């Protein structure tokens, strides 16, 4: 098993595309996302009742990167680019992977 870092970003569904672009630019080889609801400083949001316009939906995005510094750089850039205007949180977790080359560019 090899050490790696998991990035997690929970933010507004409408910016999924641009956030994943930043993640890929930051050096991740892939990402996974799931529809989510939640509550934070900007009030309740919902995956099932995202409002008729959909702007009230959340998404949870995860990416495994080999290098912890890279992981931190990615969440810092997402945070700086979007979290002033959009709802969102970001954190990292240590994980262990089987096939290290799968997560290296």
């Amino acid at each position: 098993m090899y050490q790696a870092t998991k990035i997690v970003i929970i933010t507004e569904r409408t910016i999924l595309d641009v956030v994943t672009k930043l993640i890929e630019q930051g050096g991740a080889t892939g990402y996974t996302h799931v529809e989510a609801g939640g509550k934070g400083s900007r009030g309740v949001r919902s995956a099932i009742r995202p409002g008729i316009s959909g702007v009230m939906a959340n998404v949870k995005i995860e990416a495994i990167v080999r290098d912890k510094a890279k992981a931190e750089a990615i969440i810092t850039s997402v945070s700086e680019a979007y979290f002033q205007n959009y709802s969102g949180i970001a954190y990292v977790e240590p994980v262990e992977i089987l096939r290290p080359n799968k997560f290296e560019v």
Partner: protein
Amino acid sequence: MDMITDILTGFVSQMQKPTLAFLIGGMALAAFGSKLEIPEPVYKFIVFLLLMKVGLGAGISVRAADIVELAVPAVAAALVGIAIVLFGGQTLARLRGVTQVDAMATAGLFGAVSASTLAASMAMLDEEGIAYEGFIGALYPFMDIAALVTAIVLARLSAERKAAANISGQPGGAAALTVGEGHGNSNAQMVRGILLDTFRSAAISALLLGLALGIFARPDSVYESFYDILFRGLLSILMLIMGMEAWARLSELRRVAHAYVAYGLLAPLVHGVFGFAAGLFVHQITGFSGGGVVLLAVMAASSSDISGPPTLRGALPEANPSSYVGTSTGLGTPVAILSIPLWIILADMFIGV
């Protein structure tokens, strides 16, 4: 005394109309805390079907319409959309607790068109046997796109001006990828990018698809045997949804300035007058019908609640969605729907329907 009784009776009988009654029923359910919900995929599909119905119907009529008859109300619709944004943006931005960008975003939504409100007014005219031009649905994108583009462009220009004044700018802003594509540096590129985003939005695409199919294909049989038949029933369900949605979004307004409440309640009436006046003018020039005047007033009075908000969220990230979604979906739409009978009465008074 008699007049008051008359008005009250008239009001009650209006509220009993299926369209309005379902809207009120939806608000009542939500206010009562009911757990009833129409699943998201279902209401997305209902909205799609109604937009296709409006688009196909308009497209089929456009085939037979002459160009002047079409062009005059189209230009009028676009101008009304722009006027609402200019007027509404000015007004709102002056009120306490409203930022420039939030004012523009909100006015943009109110200048744009609500598919549900437009469909409701068509159903009410049909019910009363009031005729209107078949191509009216084709005016929707003119008003909608004109309003959204105006609002976004003005808000961005004003932000740029402010940023130029205040050189330091916002930290990190530079790193952000712009949401949506094609937004370049020059203003022309900016407008192109916004237009592209607007045309790609779900509601405008569905409407334009319907229009194109109506004009270039021969969908008359399937239009009559399916889209038109289901129209009234699906609309009743959409009204229920809009009622529940309005109640749910009202709570957003607790977080924002009181000014939005006043705007949400009054703007539909004022904007409706803009649309109504434009309609009368078109009536003078091209003989536009009384029903057409009503529909132009309703489009102006209505505010976008499906397609507009995500477009604005992408194009104006600094605007607070609680303000504009709360004001439009929470107040603007129910007020616009409930005031449809008003425009019918006025049209009858002014030119007969």
